[in-house]
């Protein structure tokens, strides 16, 4: 065990910090759930990509830096420290890309990854369906093979970013009459194909953060199949592992929120201490953000030694999502009567991040597999408890 950064790692941090200090926009970009904001974030991604910063863990020839997980953690720390913009293409870069690298053909990798790194292509996910949320194996949308094409019919829902994204990846039932996790295929497609209708869904904040997607005889070239036909479930599970695992929520995000929360508490300390629970919650949040960071470094170190990611995927999901809610609830308490103000309200100046963050945090225990499902997974797969 050695908890010192190497000289190379320190140098990497310094380089990233310097670049971000010079380039991070001084004013926050508009929300990427608006058309204007999406475009601005796409430009920012291109700027990141010019340095290999949009996808630091990717190989250099695909647009990344070939960074290892410790370097990724360092990058993320600097990124969040700098208050840089949210990552509009994270569905592609952090979720799809690792799967593509493992299961994609050389042609697919070359076709998709470089354009993903620069966000020339932005990606949305197509997992859930109206009858298949936590129960993902209940997918009913179909992909019927016809020669060199799949013909897609059905409906997806809760597709994050789909309103403005270029491409979709998702699971479709390619074997007629198959059930549950059999006979599914993992298919990629542009969202502007004929027969695709994207219906925005307004979120709590009023913005179209996700969408319903309807497929009416959409014809997708067969070379957009990822992995083998009928192999979709296995491949998707790998993706879900990444999602719930390390890369979806880097610890730096929560450390930034925790530090902001401490600052908010300190700035309102006399007022806050009227409710001793606040001081206690602030401390606990900071400790938990540290714990999440330490756990991630420990996992990264184990992976570097050749271990495989295991139950961390589920324990992480529960831990960060509940921490995020707790941090934002605490901030709401500190803000008191100002907490309810929309970010654009004049009196919300300087605190706009908290309501946005609070609303976003509430989605945490739900998406990427509800925390109830995660607890089932921990109980059954990690602890070996009997199935119902």
């Amino acid at each position, binding site marked *: 065990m050695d908890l010192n950064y190497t000289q190379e790692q320190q140098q990497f941090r310094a380089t990233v910090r310097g670049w971000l200090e010079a380039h991070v926009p001084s004013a926050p970009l508009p929300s990427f759930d608006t058309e204007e904001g999406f475009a601005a974030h796409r430009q920012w991604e291109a700027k990141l990509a010019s340095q290999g910063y949009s996808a630091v863990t990717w190989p250099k020839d695909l647009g990344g830096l070939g960074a290892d997980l410790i370097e990724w953690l360092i990058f993320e720390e600097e990124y969040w420290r700098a208050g840089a913009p949210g990552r509009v293409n994270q569905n592609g870069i952090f979720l799809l890309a690792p799967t593509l690298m493992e299961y994609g053909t050389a042609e697919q990798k070359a076709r998709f990854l470089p354009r993903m790194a620069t966000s020339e292509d932005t990606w949305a996910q197509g997992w*859930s369906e109206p*009858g298949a*949320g*936590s*129960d993902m194996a*209940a997918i009913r949308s179909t992909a019927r093979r016809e020669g060199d094409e799949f013909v897609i019919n059905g409906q997806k*829902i*809760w597709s994050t970013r789909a309103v403005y994204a270029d491409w979709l990846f998702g699971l479709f039932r390619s074997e007629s009459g198959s059930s549950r996790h059999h006979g599914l295929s993992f298919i990629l497609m542009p969202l502007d194909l004929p027969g695709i209708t994207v219906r925005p*869904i*307004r*979120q*709590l*904040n*009023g913005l179209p953060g*996700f969408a319903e997607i309807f497929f009416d005889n959409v014809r997708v070239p067969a070379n957009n199949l990822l992995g083998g036909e009928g192999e979709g479930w296995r491949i998707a599970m790998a993706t879900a592992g990444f999602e719930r695992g390390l890369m979806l929520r880097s610890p730096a995000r929560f450390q930034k929120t925790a530090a902001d929360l401490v600052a908010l508490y300190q700035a309102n300390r006399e*007022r*806050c201490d*009227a*409710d001793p*629970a*606040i001081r206690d919650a602030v401390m606990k949040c900071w400790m938990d953000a540290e714990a999440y960071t330490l756990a991630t470094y420990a996992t990264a170190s184990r992976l570097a030694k050749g271990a495989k990611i295991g139950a961390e995927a589920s324990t992480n999901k529960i831990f960060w999502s509940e921490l995020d*809610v707790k941090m934002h609830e605490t901030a*709401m*308490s500190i*803000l*008191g*009567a*100002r*907490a*309810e*103000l*929309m970010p*654009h*309200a*004049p*009196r*919300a100046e300087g605190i706009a991040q908290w*309501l946005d963050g609070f*609303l976003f945090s*509430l*989605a945490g*225990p*739900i*998406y990427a597999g*509800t*925390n*109830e499902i995660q*607890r089932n997974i921990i109980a059954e797969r990690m602890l070996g408890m009997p199935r119902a």
Partner: protein
Amino acid sequence: MNFSFDDQQVQFRDAVRSFLVVQAAPEVLREHWETTDSGRSPEMRQKITEQGLTALSVPEAYGGLQQGDLDWVLLLQEVGYHGIPDSLSDAAYVGVGIVAALEDEAFKSEWLGRMCEGKARLAISHPLNPLVHDAQIADLILLWHNDEVHAATPDQVGLELNPSIDASRRLYKLDWTPSDATRVCDAASGKAIWAQAVNRAAVAVGAQMVGLAQRMLDLGVDYSAQRKQFGKPIGSFQAIKHQMADIAVKIEFARPVLHRAAYALQHGDATLEAKVSHARLACAEAALLAARNAMQAHGAMGYTWEADLQMFMKRAWALESFWGDRLFHKQRVAQALFAADAQIGPGTTF
């Protein structure tokens, strides 16, 4: 010793409930909030007036029904349940209470009479609330200034709109200058008036919170009975059941505290403040837990604008700091509980 409501109180509550079920469906309210500047509907206010709500607190001498805090506490649970904007209780309950306590008979006659007829909206500006809701469409704004009561019309004050996450709320930062012309009550009398107003408002918020909690519980139970995953309604899973049961427990043990606070308000009580703040905390706890758990039961659907749940969650979040936030109310409880002469233990409740 009888800790239950009279039949008459319950019947009036039931009548208002029946009215609201029909007249205040979520889609109706949402249309007001989402398509109008004021977020309010004169027709709805007229109907509410016809139900007697705006005259409920007005003394009989001024044409009102002269009902008390215990009547209000039952009604306001329904108001909360149905998502009626909370400016109603500020006007008809808290505001009327302030006006009724003033000495200027002409002033009282005018405004209490107009309230009875449904022809006045009252708004209230108090330091516990940095922003004033419905100030723009108020016919009269009652303003705190160093314990004095002032009154002004919207055109006499500067108004800066500050949108809330709760689409029903129209919040304004006020810019005004107190003067002899606006003063309607001096600080000596005003102090008690404002103290009573704060306690009433806190009970009103608490009552609405309990109603909101019950509504969110009902929505969570309903949704989880319909929504199927893994071939079963998700409401058959123990995790969801227990989340709903937890809300029910919170509600069961918030309501009596709320009702005791209303009784204390109506009858006067040496530790009124602590009783009111305890109620406020217990009710808010139920509502906030209901919001969390009902959203979890709704899954992604709970995160949408489309699902009605959002209306009630956002109200609960907004009310959490209205008329005193958690810090304020905890401090009032602490002051009473940790006082050297605090009377606690068995036999000290009543």
